[in-house]
């Protein structure tokens, strides 16, 4: 994989890097990961993307990762030496869509690794992921995440176009890129149970209304305030909540993390993924060390499961934005922990993570780090 990076994030830089990638005969398809802070809009970027003669896929994220640095502006163009079958799925939140049917016949080639980028603010991401797995199953590996914008200070929820392909820059949808790449995938989070369980007694999609028949925010606030010794207000909600996500635990003690990123005026908790009613959740805690240890574990899993005989490897890091916010100044250590020298490392901070290699039941993840070792 050939990697070009420009920290300015201008559309001219995108155009220039795409031209270089297109002119390189060894590049057969192009992955673009860029910062939403670049301020790109469809009108200015579409001509560049639509004019690209090679398959292009990617998305815009709050931050991108190049080696062990994160950027709020910039673009990474990665030229793959293999072809990619790119498919756009517009408006994945459409309530009428049957995701068991949408993917039927979408690809007619064997899977290696599928890149999956979804608009992180779209509805029905869980249904989308479920339909994807139902149709393509264990034929290959899945990596990707939720794209879009998040402002750590203002929690700006403004939706912006963030999914890109040869069709241009779009919002509300998803792009899938099926490649013959072999990959090793490691998934880990480092959070553990602190309090619970609590029964989700009322919820709707990604909004929890009540826990144990009490207003969800009250229950959550009581626990978190005792844990951190501070009063939780509307203003500091995310600041405290980022260190205490929810966890959904299965029979084998695997914990799926669910990230409460906002509380609404009605005393409900807004989660970064759907939580069905009648689910039991725990409130989790973690510290910098457990998260950093988890990052190292993800790297080891990815490295161990990647094809050892590959000529060239690239590490793709998909890390939750709220992990970065939680780790703060130590986030650089997380990027050091996942780095596999001497291979190049790229990645992004996401609004939900996707990483599946057939070892676990595939779900849209929160507050988790996914490390993919891509082999060419």
């Amino acid at each position, binding site marked *: 994989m050939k990697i070009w990076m420009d920290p300015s994030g201008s559309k001219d830089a995108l155009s220039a890097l795409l031209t270089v990638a297109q002119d390189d005969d060894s590049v057969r398809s192009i992955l673009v990961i860029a910062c939403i802070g670049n301020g790109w809009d469809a009108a200015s970027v579409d001509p560049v993307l639509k004019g690209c003669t090679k398959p292009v896929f990617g998305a815009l994220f709050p931050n991108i990762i190049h080696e062990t640095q994160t950027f709020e502006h910039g673009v990474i163009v990665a030229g793959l030496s293999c072809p990619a079958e790119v498919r756009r799925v517009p408006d994945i939140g459409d309530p009428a869509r049957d995701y068991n049917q949408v993917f039927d016949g979408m690809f007619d080639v064997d899977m290696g690794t599928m890149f999956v980028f979804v608009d992180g603010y779209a509805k029905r991401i869980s249904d989308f992921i479920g339909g994807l797995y139902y149709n393509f*199953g*264990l*034929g290959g590996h899945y990596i990707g995440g939720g794209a879009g914008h998040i402002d750590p200070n203002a929690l700006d929820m403004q939706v912006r176009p963030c999914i890109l392909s040869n069709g241009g820059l779009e919002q509300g949808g998803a792009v899938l890129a099926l490649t013959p790449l072999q990959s090793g995938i490691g998934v880990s989070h480092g959070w553990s149970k602190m309090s619970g369980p609590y029964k989700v007694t009322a919820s709707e999609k990604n909004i929890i209304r009540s826990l144990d028949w009490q207003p969800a925010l009250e229950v959550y606030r009581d626990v978190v305030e005792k844990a951190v010794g501070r009063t939780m207000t509307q203003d500091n909600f995310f600041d405290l909540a980022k260190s205490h996500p929810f966890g959904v635990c299965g*029979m*084998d003690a695997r914990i799926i993390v669910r990230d409460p990123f906002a509380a609404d005026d009605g005393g409900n908790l807004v989660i970064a993924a759907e939580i069905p009613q009648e689910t039991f959740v725990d409130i989790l805690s973690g510290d910098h060390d457990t998260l950093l240890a988890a990052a190292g574990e993800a790297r080891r899993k990815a490295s161990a499961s990647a094809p050892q005989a590959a000529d060239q490897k690239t590490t793709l890091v998909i890390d939750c934005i709220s992990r970065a916010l939680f780790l703060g100044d130590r986030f650089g250590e997380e990027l050091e922990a996942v780095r596999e020298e001497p291979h190049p490392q790229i990645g992004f901070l996401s609004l939900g993570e996707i990483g599946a290699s057939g070892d676990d*039941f595939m779900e849209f993840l929160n507050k988790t780090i996914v490390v993919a070792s891509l082999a060419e």
Partner: protein
Amino acid sequence: MEHTLNLIQSQYELAMAIGSSLELEPMLHRSLAALMRVTNCPVGCVLFHEPKTGQDAFRQVFAIPRNVEQVGGYQAAIKTLEVMASPVENTDNWCRLSVVGQGTDGMFFHLIGLPGLGAVILARKGTALDPVIVKSLVPMMAKLAGACQSCMQNAELLRHRDNLQQMLDELVERRTRELNEAKDAAERMARTDPLTGIANRRGFFERSDVAFNLSLRYGHALAVVIFDIDWFKCINDKYGHAAGDHVIISAARTAENCMRDSDIIGRLGGEEFAIVLPRATREDALPLVERIRKTMEGGAVVHDQREISYTCSFGVSELCPDDKSLEDVVVRADRSLYRAKESGRNKVVF
């Protein structure tokens, strides 16, 4: 303690997810996905036992992912299931089974009996499920089997309801058609003379009124002929009423055969008939009526091997500018008929 709590929580979540729909496929999709999530198994499949002649067989009803057959070791797992289920008569042998087997690619297959129906397969890589977990799923299988039965019964009831609805629709459609046909027949009969098959007085005047009004509106000519059978009482007296009926039929047929398709004929009563000739003047009508008269005069009715000759007298009138109704034209034709009778019968009088 924590492990037990996890099991109980997961059992509760499964119990809530199972049977949440009365449609089999959505219900299985949700239930199986919940089962796979709480056990962290990326492969799940529901199979129904359908014994075939000479072999045991399991039919895949629902699977996640749907291409589960491509998972290494899946077919071997099915074979294991078939062995465990044999003999099929002893359903207890396989309804309670809870087996762990290892397939290729490090995939562990867990077969859990679905009481009375078949089995569920859960598979995952790396490590097998703890036997305590598998055992904790057994009661959930009873609930899942019950939910499947409910879905199938519901489907059967819906099929039965649809069949009944279809039968009812067909019955209603057939009865509606029959009623419409009966109504049409009754309406036809109300306007038709049963002896001759031509219009009766009511039918004749309904159709003729339309022709009269059209003639008035567009200024077209119209002629009316009234005729009756001469000496009809004598025919009845001499040959009987059955013979008289034959003569009436003959008169109607003879007149019909000489008319144009657009002309209207009716039996006004007894031996009296009327014909309306739209767009016909007196000059147009007279040759036609004369042809009818001559045909009747030259023919005979055969009844009981006896030939019965008969003649008719005809009164003809035509539409005048002052006529307000068809009745006015008919009255004039009736007067002409009277004159024909008075002047010796077997005549056409205008």
